[in-house]
């Protein structure tokens, strides 16, 4: 039997490249701990995405798989203690790899903070951002070596320390000069 096939035109992006659309960290209570958006989302879309996802993910049982469908994309999540790490990837992508990207990130955080806990991320979210920026760039995994990332971050930290001292002494000088 042959009828006209009227297929819904779904706007599923058929791209092979492993684009990560966003990363977010949500606490068990549904509080946002970190978000980074690699594709363009308006503030409204962002809040909606987080709201929807935390609804879906937080209610999932422990033995189910770590992937959920979300609007033609896939969200891969993993729970560490009270914190859920979520990555939104494209439909065609390797979910297990994304899961390991999360774990990779956690291991790097752990190495940096020294047995990291949620509070570390709450109070130092900007540092977590810096680390994430060394791991992922433009939605792609840019570095898979923990050592390289750790080296870069500590180089930045050292420089920041130096710069801070300079800055404070400089501002003192300026302040004195302008008096």
């Amino acid at each position, binding site marked *: *039997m*042959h*009828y*006209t*096939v*009227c297929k*819904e035109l779904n706007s599923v992006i058929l791209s*092979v*490249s492993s684009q990560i659309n966003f990363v977010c960290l949500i606490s068990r209570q549904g*509080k*946002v701990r970190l978000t980074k958006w*690699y594709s*363009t989302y308006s*503030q409204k879309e*962002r809040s909606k995405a987080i709201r929807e996802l935390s609804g879906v993910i937080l209610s999932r049982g422990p033995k*189910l*798989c770590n*992937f959920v*469908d979300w*609007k033609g994309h896939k969200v891969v999540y993993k729970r*560490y*203690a009270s*914190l859920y790490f979520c990555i939104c990837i494209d439909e065609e992508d*390797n979910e*297990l*790899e994304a*899961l*390991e990207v999360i*774990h990779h990130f*956690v291991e790097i955080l*752990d190495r940096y*903070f*020294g*047995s*990291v*806990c*949620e*509070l570390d991320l*709450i*109070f*130092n*979210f*900007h540092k977590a951002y*810096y680390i994430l*920026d060394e791991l992922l*760039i*433009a939605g*792609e*995994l*840019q570095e*898979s*070596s923990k050592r*390289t990332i750790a080296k870069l971050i500590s180089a*930045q930290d050292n*420089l*920041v320390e130096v*710069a801070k001292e*300079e*800055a404070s002494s400089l*501002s003192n000088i300026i302040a004195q000069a302008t008096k």
Partner: protein
Amino acid sequence: MGSQGGIGQSKEFLDLVKSIGEARSKAEEDRIVLGEIETLKRRLVEPGIPKRKMKEYIIRLVYIEMLGHDASFGYIHAVKMTHDDNLFLKRTGYLAVTLFLNEDHDLIILIVNTIQKDLKSDNFLIVCAALNAVCKLINEETIPAVLPQVVELLGHQKEAVRKKAIMALHRFHQKSPSSVSHLVSNFRKRLCDNDPGVMGATLCPLLDLINRDVSSFKDLVVSFVSILKQVAEHRLPKAYDYHQLPAPFIQIRLLKILALLGSGDKQSSEQMYTVVGDIFRKCDSSSNMGNAVIYQCICCVSSIHPNPKLLESAADQIARFLKSDSHNLKYLGIDALGRLIKLSPEIAEQHQLAVIDCLEDPDDTLKRKTFELLHKMTKSSNVEVIVDRMIDYMISINDNHYKTEIVSRCVELAEQFAPSNQWFIQTMNRVFEHAGDLVNIKVAHNLMRLIAEGFGEDDDTAYTHLRSSAVDSYLRIIGAPKLPSVFLQVICWVLGEYGTADGKYSASYITGKLCDVAEAYSNDETVKAYAVTALIKIYAFEIAAGRKVDILPECQSLIEELSASHSTDLQQRAYELQAVIALDAQAVENIMPSDASSKEIEIDKNLPFLNDHVERAIEKGAQPYIPESERSGFSNASYLNSQDLHDIPPSHGLRFEAYELPKQPSVPLTTPPISIGSSNELIAVPEPAYDRGNQAAVSVPSSSNSGPAEVKLRLDGVQKKWGRPTYSSSSPSPSAAPSQDTVNGLTVSNGATSVTPAISKGRETTYEPTRKSQVVEISPEKQKLAASLFGGSSKQERKSSLGGGHKTAAKPSGGHGAETSVKKMAVPAQQPPPPDLLDLGETTVATSGPLIDPFKQLEGLLDMVEPTSSTNNHGDVNATKVPDVMASFGDTATAVEHGGNHFSSIEDVDNLMSGLSSATTDVSSDGGIATPQSTAQISKGPNLKDALQKDALVRQMGVNPSSQNPNLFKDLLG
């Protein structure tokens, strides 16, 4: 590194974070954040803020934004901060702008200059920070401003810079492929970078480039293969290892690239076979990451030119995935199966039970993936089961996005593979009932067309049966609350056309229902319009049949209400209705021939019967007709829309010559609209059909002398001139022709195959009540499902499942089950039966007869199976199918018992071989004994072996808060 308190953050900020952390509700959090926004708005405009302080404000802005509030009032301060010379501040500024701004934000133009400057900095950290911003912020317009510098940075001495430069170029390529098309050679060069990180990063843009244009990268196959080989052989620095795997992320990327390059290219594929095979062999299958690589290998194997050996190892790995306890692996297994099934369809069969397990899994994600797989393997033999399942699932979910997707899949499958029209209609009814608003309107039109003309003229009983069953089902459904509009349209149309056709229902009953619909959905004008038109038809058929029409009071009030409706369409229809009722039988017969919707309407474009009239008119001095093509100045569209064409000469376009003399209303034009009317009904365009009623009332008496020609007017060409564009009435008929065969097939030739599913259905009901008590015995049911899904080796599975049914019937509760089954089979006598039950007059007899003895009942069922199966001999069936039986049993045993005793299952198989009847008893007795055993095994839970395995798994996974890996994520609260 100090873990808490951060460095240099004020108490104020720490308090903010803390109070948000302690907030009990989202509303409380919002209130705190709003307060913070007010504070920051005030503070930021204060003059002379120290830079340290400013940095903190920016971070607070980031925090606000992260929590989902708008911090745009402070964006400009973040932009300013990027201008600072101090790296410490600059870095914060860049971080903030990358988080705040999208690539099309107005403020970006203020940053480009700073980025340009920073890209030239001799401090590589500043360059890195700038490159991070480039990746996020530079848009198509600003690419040229930074491109030369980024390209220059490809040769930077620091690998971190080179890597980021590559990624920046990759981003440029995504945004505007032309901007970097001349730089492909740079990517190729970076592939040979000394630093593995840079090489790995280079694979990202290459993957993209290859995805767009495979052919120009074929020369790189050798390089990619050799890189992959080296990576797999542990030749990269240890730092790239991940859980003892050699650079798995790079391996995965390379495999993705190879999959693209080898697709449909035998020569390239051959170069890859060895290395992919090596990875299959070597990869550590116990870790997540290893499985990720293996999964990517399977994807690669299914994409490149097929190689039997690789396919085999892929199939092995899939089997392992599917048998795994981990839902993640099962999920990947199902996905991989869907990929491989294109190449080797037979592979699905050995995993049928695993697939069904996944289908019945409580995990939604897994279920959906399995539906995806089933969608890929749907054939006409299993479409009923699959679509049924899909619809059941569709009904159970709320997520509209996915609902729409699965509905469109159901419709697609149903349209492609429907075994019978009856089934198609039933299926569509379910789809419409539960997700009508998500269905394309065309589907509804198809359904109506099918009901109208689904069967050929040569089989009248089936023809009317289909329609009356449709009417029956719609009358049943119509009372349900809140039906979707589209579905109601279908219902009204069908009731109007065929509601009274078989004489089962009186006109007043049907019209009453239609009035109810019009009343219940009084704010849906389309539905009301359909309902009124249906009323017209019902009354017209009544009048034509010479019966007296009694208009129900509610119908009368409906007509009155609609005559005063604001909608001209509804008003028009109401008047038409009144006009039709006033006509005599002869006239009504002509304007509303019964069952005309599927009649081929012959159209003679030349309208020869009008010739006399035209000549007379010309003799009287009328203007001769000028064909459209010879006229100018007409706007075609408005011309087509002119509906009151007998009043005004068809001249809606701008005309520059003087108006002609008014023409007499031309009588001959009256007939065509009637036929348009009835052909319109078919697709039921929700536009007003102004022409029909008026003309009918005015002109029918005069046109009745033109005899049979009216009904058979050919309107092909006419419709282009008059009236609106409609579905051409000729298109339905060709599509109806092929369907005819299948329809007949349902009742006649399909008999043999469709008997068995129906039997299994009957059995299902007997079986269900006891289902929960039998953990192991679920498998027969699954096998049955497997049989219906996967076809093929279904026969002996059916038998083994019969064994299951047998056993339940023997239990006390079985009697009840049998009763219900009989009841269920008896019901279809009054209701339009589901398609598969329909053909089962015989079975009903067989099952309902020996009600007293459930055993005999089942024997009866068995007897039914025998003659229908192609091999009549038990011995034959068993002998030929034994390997399959063993396989399936082996599967069940392992799947259910987890390395429990396999012996019993082997015994089962032996028993099966010794003839069917003994097999059934054996299985039943065996099952009866085996059940407690295996439940005990399962309830025993993690035995030592399991526990060890779990432990090992946990250790491989690394982080598990509850395990002995306490260093990670010790939550302060927990």
